[in-house]
């Protein structure tokens, strides 16, 4: 079959020889494909790209969304540079990301390795690990507000029980951000675990068997076979969790509203406050775009690194 393909019947070759019709040039070989992707394309254009473009225009204006806007060029971006509250928000976001991403990926891997074996009730354990992930951030917020209440919460009662001083948790400006990292991990680990588990089960059994026949111990198998096979998934998770961390909002909204004393004001919460509480929609959009650029840059860097590696591998 494969060998026969290049030898096309002469008649058909003759028909294809003239320049393709304009229709084919515009719509390609399979015009009906466009029909299939049209609905989702329109939705993505309408709900993602149009608003993003509009938000960019907004970021160049002094606008409260209610009265006529005024074009002010890059003034909003310049004001952001001088705004100490925005600086704090960026710093809080970076601290959160720097803690959340490695902890969730390493923790997720560790738990996945533990759950990737045949033991009794394994399905139950796997479900339990995943359950927090499907809980809404609002519900998580309410749950942890109860547990971490400095006066009446379970956490302090437990600390009391083992003789450790009571903590302020979300009410202590020095702890609140780290407490949020903890809550974020509780809710976000399940996703890493599931992805790693799937990847672990994709590792060909022959590889592992061959390794064990060659006398590899568990540690060597993990280092030489398991971890290298997990590399693509790990990179995906690192990037994905970074995006999640940079976009943190709902947890902050549900628990601390950026407080106490601004200790948990992250960039997206700052944007929300400026745009929807203080009527600085233009300024808020500018802040949102700074974050968007950071995310694009991160994604771009990752793609570039991958392309470079591939080229080196080919060479």
């Amino acid at each position, binding site marked *: 079959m494969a060998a026969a393909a290049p030898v096309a019947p002469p008649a058909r070759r003759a028909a294809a020889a003239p320049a393709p019709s304009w229709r084919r040039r515009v719509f390609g070989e399979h015009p009906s494909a466009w029909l299939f992707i049209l609905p989702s394309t329109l939705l993505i254009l*309408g*709900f*993602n790209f*149009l*608003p*993003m473009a*509009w938000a960019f225009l*907004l970021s160049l*204006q*002094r606008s*409260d*969304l*209610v*009265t006529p*806007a*005024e074009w002010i060029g890059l*003034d*909003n971006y310049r*004001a*952001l540079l001088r*705004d100490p*509250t*925005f600086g704090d928000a960026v710093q809080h976001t970076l601290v959160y990301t720097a803690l959340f991403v490695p902890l969730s990926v390493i923790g997720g891997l560790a738990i996945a390795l533990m759950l990737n074996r045949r033991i009794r009730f394994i399905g139950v354990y796997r479900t339990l690990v995943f359950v927090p992930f499907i809980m809404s951030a609002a519900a998580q917020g309410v749950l942890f*507000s109860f547990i971490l*209440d400095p*006066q*009446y919460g379970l956490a302090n009662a437990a600390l009391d029980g083992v003789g450790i001083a009571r903590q302020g948790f*979300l*009410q202590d*400006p020095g702890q609140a951000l780290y407490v949020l990292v903890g809550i974020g991990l509780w809710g976000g680990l399940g996703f890493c675990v599931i992805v790693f588990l799937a990847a672990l089960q994709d590792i060909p059994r022959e590889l592992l068997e061959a390794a064990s026949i060659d006398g590899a111990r568990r540690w060597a198998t993990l280092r030489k076979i398991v971890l290298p096979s997990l590399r693509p998934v790990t990179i995906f998770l690192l990037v994905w969790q970074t995006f999640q961390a940079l*976009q943190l*909002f709902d947890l902050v*909204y*549900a*628990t*601390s*509203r*950026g*407080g*106490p*004393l*601004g200790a948990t004001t992250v*960039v*997206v919460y700052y*944007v*929300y406050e*400026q*745009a*929807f*509480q*203080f*009527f*600085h929609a*233009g*300024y*808020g*959009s500018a802040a*949102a775009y700074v*974050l*968007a650029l950071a995310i694009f840059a991160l994604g771009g860097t990752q793609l570039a690194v991958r392309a470079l590696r591939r080229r080196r591998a080919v060479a």
Partner: protein
Amino acid sequence: MRRLLIAVAATALLAFAGCGSSDDDGGSGADGGPVEVTFWHGQNDIMKDAYDTLVDEFNASHPDVKVDANSGGVLADEMLTKLTAGLAGGAYPDVAYVFGSDLANIARSDKVQDLTEAVRDPAWQWDDFFAGEREAATVEGRVRAVPALADNLGIIYDKRLFDAAGEPYPDADWTWDDFRATAKRLTDEDKGQFGFSWPGAGGEDTTWRLWPMLWQQGGEILSPDGRTVAFDSPEGVAALELVGEMATEDKSIFVDSDPNGERAIRLFQGGKLAMVEAGPWILPDVIDARVDYGTQRLPGFDGDHTTISGSDNWVLFDNGDERARAAQEFVQWLTARRQDLALVRALQTLPLRASTAASPQYRRLAAQIPGTDVFAAALDTARARPSLQVYPEISKNVGEAVVAVLLGRADAQEALEAAAQRSDALLAGAGAGG
């Protein structure tokens, strides 16, 4: 981030789609039909039923106007965002329920009717609304709204906890020093019981409770010319110091970091909190939990017991002359004495009008819910917060100062001075950006 862009986006889409009411589906009085008025009350449950009943009555008695009542698709908390989206897209209702502290920002729009001339018409009986309500409906000297709901702050206490501690119930002449001592005596750390609570999330809920304490001593939020803030005066510092000492020295204040202040209400319902500062809106929950409660007006400084009015408003929009006039006709009817009384009866709220409050019917109603008399009596003297566009930002600055002091992180004087400095910059127009 992307979620935020999407939120901004949704606003844009609402604008393009022109959902909600639009110009072409109503207001056709000229060709014979009634003028349609879209009315967003932002309420559910019993509040919604009460408004629906009144709207039906209005429609039956006013054949030339047809009011279409609905919540607006949101509850009152989210009304500001919804209206902002509507205004950005040119599709907005004729009448909407707007929180007192949001009015100045909605009134940026010239689509919000200016009622200054209209309310001079004796049919409105404008001066019959309590002064605090009128002040709250006025922005930069112009009347931009009509009072919709009256509220003010007083103290609600749990009689059982007072009895258990052998503490006499507070009398109307109590001072803030009495209050502090009472709160301290009613605090019992071992039982997890607090004398008082203060919202610690740093929003307007944290801030507005400080204003009566400032006013009672003769202090003001703004300087007389309105160009700078004045809350960092000795009066403001004294007020905040008192609250701070209660929280950090007496440990009699439960700092409620819940963004909605729900935890304090639950503690009060559960008999773990002796006193809360709240308005009559809390009474249904308290009665529901079978708390044997009493109410008293706010403690005073030097015999002054001024409280703060938290009144909300009906904002009227301009969808063409005909609909604008019809909206006025409807709101005038809705806030007239007879309907005012009907709402008080249905919702156990406070009367909007002095004449309602003085009527024998109202006195009979008030007698059925113990404690409302305290709030009704304060309607006369309650003051409104300033209607300023930058008020939400000033409120945030002050709220953070209060939280810092409550948590023992800052000294009252320094915290208020820092808040004042940032607020002065806002008033001078040197805010963050556009």
